[in-house]
């Protein structure tokens, strides 16, 4: 018989080891469907590695893919630290992207020097605005933000389609549902010649470092952690719980909005309704893999981006489906969830019906 006992504390090796081990187990488990598809798993993973690290271009592609995931991963990690379950990063990403093209495509006459900062600020503000109503409903009426933020995603997506066929539609776009392009002065500059990796990555990394520092060292971070770990005690101690929640909600929405800004103004240049292949949702996986640590978010985002980019190139080389990437990502999430359980509890084997000596 197996019994479950709570651990008094989690060993440090576990907090670090579990995400890494989970990722490895997920990759190992993914070998089974690879075998079933008739591919040699070792060769396949070799292709995958080459697809991510085989060339400067491959690395640039991986970093390009990691950039929005760092933003959405931070959005989820910070909110989750305060036990604010923002599942709406996908919608907030599109709000940020809409704001970026609305001001960035030359409809407003803005001096070129100010255009990029304005795009960034307004994009973040638009994403943040997406969290205001759900947070208000949670604080005021106790409405579950999981439901409100999740459902808001679909509302925003429909609103986006309306905008792309209406006010935001590119007049030169031959009737396609896409926005006018962001002006050159409004674009985040590429980091390398003829590569897609762009300055959005630097912004994401700076924000991750800043978030890590503020969470551990600032009074703001102290309040946030207290509210997340024990809201009743935080309230009793005189911490403004609702204020903290609103603060982190706005920050979380803003970070998700920046993911949209970064994709539009760093990569695509214009906005379509398929800008994000679920970056908002994948950000939740990133945050969980990272153990809700901002520094960990960077590593987890790099890992997941590698899986996606590597699986793409593997599927081209080996002729297996690139859905394998989704499989690895979801399995590593499951492994992390199981690992989280193991970190908090230990299993005790009890020999049935026998007293210990």
């Amino acid at each position, binding site marked *: 018989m197996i019994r479950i006992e709570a651990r008094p504390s989690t060993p440090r090796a576990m907090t670090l080891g579990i995400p890494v081990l989970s990722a490895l187990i997920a990759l190992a488990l993914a070998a089974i469907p690879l075998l079933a598809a008739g591919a040699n798993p070792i060769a396949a993973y070799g292709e995958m590695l080459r697809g991510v690290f085989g060339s400067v271009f491959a690395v640039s592609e991986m970093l390009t893919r990691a950039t929005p995931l760092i933003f959405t991963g931070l959005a989820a990690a910070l909110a989750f630290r305060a036990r604010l379950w923002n599942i709406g990063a996908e919608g907030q990403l599109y709000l940020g992207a809409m704001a970026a093209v609305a001001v960035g495509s030359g409809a407003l006459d803005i001096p070129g020097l100010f255009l990029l900062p304005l795009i960034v600020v307004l994009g973040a503000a638009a994403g943040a605005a997406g969290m205001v109503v759900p947070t208000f409903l949670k604080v005021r009426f106790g409405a579950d933000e999981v439901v409100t933020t999740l459902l808001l995603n679909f509302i925003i997506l429909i609103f986006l389609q309306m905008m792309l066929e209406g006010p935001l539609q590119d007049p030169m776009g031959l009737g396609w549902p896409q926005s006018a392009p962001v002006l050159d002065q409004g674009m985040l500059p590429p980091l390398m010649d003829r590569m897609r990796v762009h300055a959005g990555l630097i912004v994401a990394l700076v924000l991750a470092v800043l978030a890590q520092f503020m969470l551990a*060292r600032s*009074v703001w971070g102290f309040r946030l952690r*207290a509210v997340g770990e024990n809201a*009743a*005690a935080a309230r*009793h*101690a*005189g911490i403004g719980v609702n204020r903290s929640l609103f603060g982190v909600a706005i920050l979380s929405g803003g970070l998700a909005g920046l993911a949209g800004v970064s994709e539009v103004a760093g990569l695509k240049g214009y906005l379509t309704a398929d800008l994000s292949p679920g970056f908002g949702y994948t950000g939740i996986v990133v945050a969980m893999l990272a153990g809700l640590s901002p520094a960990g978010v960077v590593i987890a985002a790099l890992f997941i981006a590698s899986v996606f980019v590597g699986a793409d190139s593997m599927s081209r080389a080996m002729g297996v489906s690139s859905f394998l990437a989704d499989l690895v990502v979801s399995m590593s999430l499951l492994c992390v969830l199981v690992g989280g359980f193991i970190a908090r509890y230990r299993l005790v084997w009890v020999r049935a019906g026998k*007293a*210990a000596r």
Partner: protein
Amino acid sequence: MTDHTVLRLNGLSKRFGTVLANDDVSLALHRGEVLALLGENGAGKTTLMNMLFGHYLPDAGTVQVAGPDGVLAPLPLGHPQAALAAGIGMVHQHFTLAENLNALDNITLGSEPLRALRRDRKSARQKIEGIIARSGLSAPLNVPVGRLSVGECQRVEILKALYRDARILVLDEPTAVLTPQEADTLFDNIKAMTRDGLSVIFISHKLREVLAFSDRIAVLRHGRKVGEMATADADEGAIARMMVGADTPKVAREAMAPGAPVLQLQGVTVPGRSPRDTLTDVTMTVHAHEILGIAGISGNGQSALARVISGLAVPQNGTIRVGEEQIARPGPATMVRAGVGRIPEDRHHEGIVGAMSVAENMVIERLDDPSVQARGLLRRGAIRAHAEALARAYDVRGPGVDARARLLSGGNIQKLILARVFEHAPRLILANQPTRGLDMGAAAEVGRRLLQARARGAGVVLISEDLDEVLSLADRILVIRDGQLVDTHSHDRERIGLMMAGEPA
């Protein structure tokens, strides 16, 4: 009383990490006997009972239980199901009832075959009514348990054990939530049941009831059994010495003239969904150099009163004055700034953030203080040094100030909170159930600190369900009942007990 042994614990030992929770404990329980298990918190009483009930697996030792035929047979350890089948019933301190179900369903829950299509409620009801008739334990069977009083819930728990044909009943601090009168009734019921052959182990801190109602007393200290005697041969001082290893420190409370008012509530009304969070037109004054005791049965508005003084509840009507200052916009931070030190009722839930460090928990009420932060950043070195000094001054023991606060024992968590509260010399102290669940040593420390604050000139509001504590510490005693305060003008235990129960004294 017969001499048949129904339960025998042989040399049980249990180690948690470096702590030896039980060390070679042997006990015997006889048919029809009430055995009181006494000891400070952390003495190992609950661990011992949890091993008996199969929640923990002992490192060493065996348990024998008499079957219906009276023959002792070894009990498989580590299996609650086996303990239940052997006729051992346990009533925990915290009830394990489903509030939305009525008593009948709660009692039968879990003892019905899972695959039965229809529940035989009629015969279940008959069986329960039979038990009620024999034992005198009455509880309304058709009302959702959430609407029953604490005493009734406890009787439902006991009925649940008896319904499962328990021949041995373990009660973990059964009177902690009862009025003295309710407790007396409970013990009368228990006496009636033991005449039918039930054997009872009850865990308690309270010497008075142990002396009055048990047949035999076993005392645990530091996991070891340090004494066992027939109650008839025992005296209060001797048992207390056994429990703490020394004479209990008598509370020395010198007379003091009350000073200026430090807290005035005037017509304070807090509407609530249930009586426990309702206050109706409460007026009270606490003076400097005064401990005001609030006695009452659990759930009569104590938490509402505490929430008002803590700043967590905003009264609908009435005024709050701390010292000279009228509190216009009450809030926890406002109250802290006004000089109110708050010791919350539920120290784990409201007192500390368990996942944060001891040092962080010591400054959590003063994050705006320049000693804690500079330009929005935490002064980690200062916070740490401050915490180490406080931990020394208040004897907070544990794995260090950087460790998570939840790793501290209950007594040390309370000392952490005391340190946080008393460090800033508050002019008013709200102590809500400050010694609940603490061992004698830690409880005495709380009392000593409260008296010290009183001597310094603070006013203290002491809310406690432990009447003995109120009687020994308070200068003046009010009774809270149905959200209203009544002055007792007395220190008479019997009279106050009756007022708590709502009877005209």
